C-alpha cells in the first residue's frame, strides 16, 4: 500500500462518492453552529420543509454577539439580541444541543468544541466560521464553510468538495523562551504570505510542533486560514489522546480503547508525498508583531516598520503605503517604539487556559502603563474563566489593572460592544489585523498573549524574552 499523508487518510475515510472530475461528497461528523452564520441556513431548511439529517452531530453556541460585561442585563443591542434568540429558537425547534449565554460551558465555538471533547481525532468538522481550522490540531479534517454549505450539511450530513493539495510545514528545533505557537503561526504567514496556503491543506509537523501542547497546536491550526489554507492539522499523539480523555463528549469504556487504537494511525506515513514543503527552524523564531493590515505584514520585535520603497513590486508597494497610512506609522520605526492605546487578550486564537497563564505570568505584580486606556482579558469560555479564577489568574490581572471579562469573541471582530475607536492602536492576541476589523479606523497589531501583556505593562511593544 502506498504511503499516505494525514490529509489523505482523513479525506479517504470520509468520501461517500466521487465523480470523475474529482468532485466528491464528504461525510461530516461534527457541525458546530453559532448565531451569525446559521439563521439563513435554518430558514432555508424550513422553507424547503427539510430537517437536519443528524442533530446529534451538531453542537451550538452563541459567541460573536454576546456581551463580555454585565451579562445578567442581557444583550442591549436589539439586532444582536434577535440573532442570539434566533439561534436559541432554532436549536429548540430541531432539538440541537446548545450552550446558551448563561451556561458555564458557553464560549467561543472553537474553544468550546475541543474543551467538550466534541472535536475528536479522525473527525471531519465544519462550522460557518473560517477559524474552524483550529480543530485540525486534533488530527481532524476541519474547515470553515459558508452559510449555504451550513444548510447543505444540515440537510445531507455531507459537503460537496474537491480534494485540496497537501502542504507540509515542518518546524524543527526548539522554541526559545517566551516564543509561542502564535509566533510560529505569524512567522509561517510572514514566510509564505496570506495566499501561500491557498488551495492547500497544511500539516504542521516537526519537533517544535510535537513539543506544543494542544492549546498551542490549536493556536497554530487556527491561523492556517490566515495563510490561505482552509484546513490546518497536526498528527495525533499522546498529547492529543491525554487532552481528549475524560471530556464530556469523548468516547467511554470499550469505545475509548477502540478509538485510541484508531487515532494512533492518524499521522502521515513515512515517505508520504506532499505537493509543497516549507521548513522553519524554531530556534530562529523571535516574538512576532504585525505592522500592517494583513497578517503577512509581520516582523519580529527587533524589527522595524518596512519602507515601501523596498517593496518587491508595484502592487505590494501600494499595499504597504496604504497600510502605513492606515496604521499611522512611519517607515523604519523600530517596532519596540510603537505605543499602544488598548490591549486585547482572548479570541479563538489565544483565549485558552494556557494563554491566560502565559499573560498572567507577565502581568504578575506589575501595573498597566498610564498611556494604555484599556487592557482587557476575555477568556475563551466559561470553563476557561472558572479554571483561571481557581488558579487566581483573575486576581493577577485585576491587580495589574486589566479588566477581567466574560467569554465571547469580543474585540477580535468587534461585533458586540467591545471595539476600538477610530485611530486607536491595539496589541491584540486575535488573528486578523484587517482594516476596520476591531472597529472602524482601528489599528491592530497581532501578537502572542505574553507579548500583549508585556505591551500593556510597558505601554509599547517590548521583547518578552528580556522580561
Amino acid at each position, binding site marked *: 500500500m502506498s504511503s499516505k499523508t494525514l490529509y489523505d487518510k482523513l479525506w479517504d475515510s470520509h468520501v*461517500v462518492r466521487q*465523480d470523475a*472530475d474529482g*468532485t466528491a*461528497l464528504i*461525510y461530516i*461528523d461534527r457541525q458546530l453552529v453559532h448565531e*451569525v*452564520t446559521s*439563521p*439563513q441556513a435554518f430558514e432555508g431548511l424550513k422553507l*424547503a420543509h427539510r430537517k437536519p439529517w443528524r442533530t*446529534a452531530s451538531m453542537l451550538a453556541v452563541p459567541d460573536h*454577539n454576546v456581551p463580555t460585561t454585565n451579562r445578567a442585563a442581557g444583550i442591549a*443591542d436589539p*439586532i444582536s439580541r*434577535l440573532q442570539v434568540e*434566533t439561534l436559541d429558537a432554532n436549536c429548540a425547534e430541531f432539538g440541537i444541543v446548545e450552550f446558551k449565554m448563561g451556561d458555564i460551558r458557553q464560549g467561543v465555538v472553537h474553544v468550546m468544541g475541543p474543551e467538550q471533547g466534541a472535536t475528536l481525532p*479522525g473527525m471531519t468538522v465544519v462550522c*460557518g*466560521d*473560517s477559524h474552524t481550522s483550529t480543530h485540525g490540531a486534533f488530527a481532524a479534517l476541519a474547515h470553515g*464553510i*459558508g*452559510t*449555504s*454549505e451550513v444548510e*447543505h450539511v444540515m*440537510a*445531507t*450530513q455531507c459537503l*460537496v468538495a*474537491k480534494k*485540496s493539495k497537501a502542504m507540509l510545514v515542518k518546524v524543527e528545533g526548539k522554541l526559545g523562551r517566551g516564543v509561542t505557537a502564535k509566533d510560529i503561526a505569524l512567522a509561517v504567514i510572514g514566510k509564505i504570505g*496570506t*495566499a501561500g496556503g*491557498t*488551495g492547500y491543506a497544511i500539516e504542521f509537523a516537526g519537533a517544535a510542533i510535537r513539543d506544543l501542547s494542544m492549546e498551542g497546536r490549536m493556536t497554530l491550526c487556527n491561523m492556517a*486560514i490566515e495563510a*490561505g*489554507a*482552509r484546513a490546518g492539522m497536526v498528527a495525533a499523539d499522546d498529547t492529543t489522546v491525554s487532552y481528549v480523555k475524560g471530556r464530556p463528549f469523548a*468516547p467511554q469504556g470499550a*469505545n475509548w480503547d*477502540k*478509538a485510541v487504537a484508531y487515532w494512533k494511525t492518524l499521522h502521515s506515513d513515512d515517505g508520504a508525498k506532499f505537493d509543497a514543503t516549507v521548513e522553519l527552524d524554531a530556534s530562529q523564531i523571535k516574538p512576532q508583531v504585525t505592522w500592517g493590515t*494583513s497578517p503577512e505584514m509581520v516582523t519580529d520585535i527587533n524589527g522595524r516598520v518596512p519602507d515601501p520603497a523596498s517593496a518587491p513590486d508595484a*502592487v*505590494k508597494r*501600494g*499595499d504597504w503605503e496604504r497600510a502605513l497610512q492606515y496604521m499611522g506609522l512611519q517607515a523604519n520605526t523600530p517596532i519596540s517604539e510603537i505605543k499602544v492605546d488598548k490591549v486585547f487578550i482572548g479570541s479563538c486564537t489565544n483565549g485558552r487556559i494556557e494563554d491566560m497563564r502565559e499573560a498572567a505570568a507577565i502581568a504578575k505584580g506589575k501595573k498597566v502603563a498610564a498611556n494604555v486606556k484599556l487592557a482587557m482579558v476575555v477568556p475563551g469560555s466559561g470553563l476557561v474563566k472558572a479554571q483561571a479564577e481557581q488558579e487566581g489568574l483573575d486576581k493577577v490581572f485585576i491587580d495589574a489593572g486589566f479588566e477581567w471579562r466574560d467569554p465571547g469573541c469580543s474585540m477580535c*471582530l*468587534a*461585533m458586540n460592544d467591545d471595539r476600538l475607536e477610530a485611530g486607536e492602536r491595539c496589541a491584540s492576541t486575535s488573528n*486578523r489585523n*484587517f*482594516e*476596520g*476589523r476591531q472597529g*472602524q479606523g482601528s489599528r491592530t497589531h497581532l501578537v502572542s498573549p505574553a507579548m500583549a501583556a508585556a505591551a500593556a505593562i510597558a505601554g509599547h511593544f517590548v521583547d518578552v524574552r528580556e522580561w
Partner: protein
Amino acid sequence: MKKFETFDGLVVPLDRANVDTDAIIPKQFLKSIKRSGFGPNAFDEWRYLDHGEPGKDNSKRPLNPDFVLNQPRYQGAQVLLARENFGCGSSREHAPWALEDYGLRVIIAPSFADIFFNNCFKNGLLPVKLPADKVDALFKAVEAGVGYKLKVDLGQQTITAPDGTAYPFEVDAHRKHCLLNGLDDIGLTLQHVEDIKAFEAKHRTAQPWLYA
C-alpha cells in the same frame, strides 16, 4: 438561484491585493438574520465617509468620492476586476450576498481565497481566475476607456474584450453545470441519499464512538 446567462457587463477596477471579506461587508451588518439587502453596505467603510450601521438610510449617507465604485463612469458595473487573494479572511457568505445584491455577477482576479471562491458559486456569482499579466492588461484597458465592457460566456468559458481578445478560463464542471442551470447543491446531493445512508452505516460500525 437564477440561471447564469451570457452578458456584456461594465467593468469596475478595484486595484488592491488581499481584499478581505471584512472590507467587503463589515461585521455590524452580519447581525442580520436575512440573506438579502446587503448591497448598499458592500465595501461600506471605503464607500461612505461616515460610520455605517444596520438600519441607517444609506441613500442619505455621504459617499467617498475617491472610492472607485462611487465614480460616475462605473455606475451599473456587473464585472469587478480585482487583484490577488480576493475575498480572504472570514468565511461570511454575506460577502458574496453583498456583491450580488450590489449588482455584480462576475469577479475577475489572479487568485481568490478558497472559502470565498466556493461561496460565490452558491449565489450565482462567477469568480474567474486569469493569469496576473492578463489581469494587469485588463486593468490598463479599463482605466483607458470609459464604458469598458467585457462579454462573459460561461458556456464557452471565455471572456471577450471589446477589441475581440478572448480570455479563456477554467471552471469546474459541476459548478458550471449548477450555475448555468440555476441548481442548488442540496437537491442534487439528496439524489444520493442511499449512498449517504450506506456510508453512514459502514462508518458507524468502524467508528461507533462517533454515534454513541
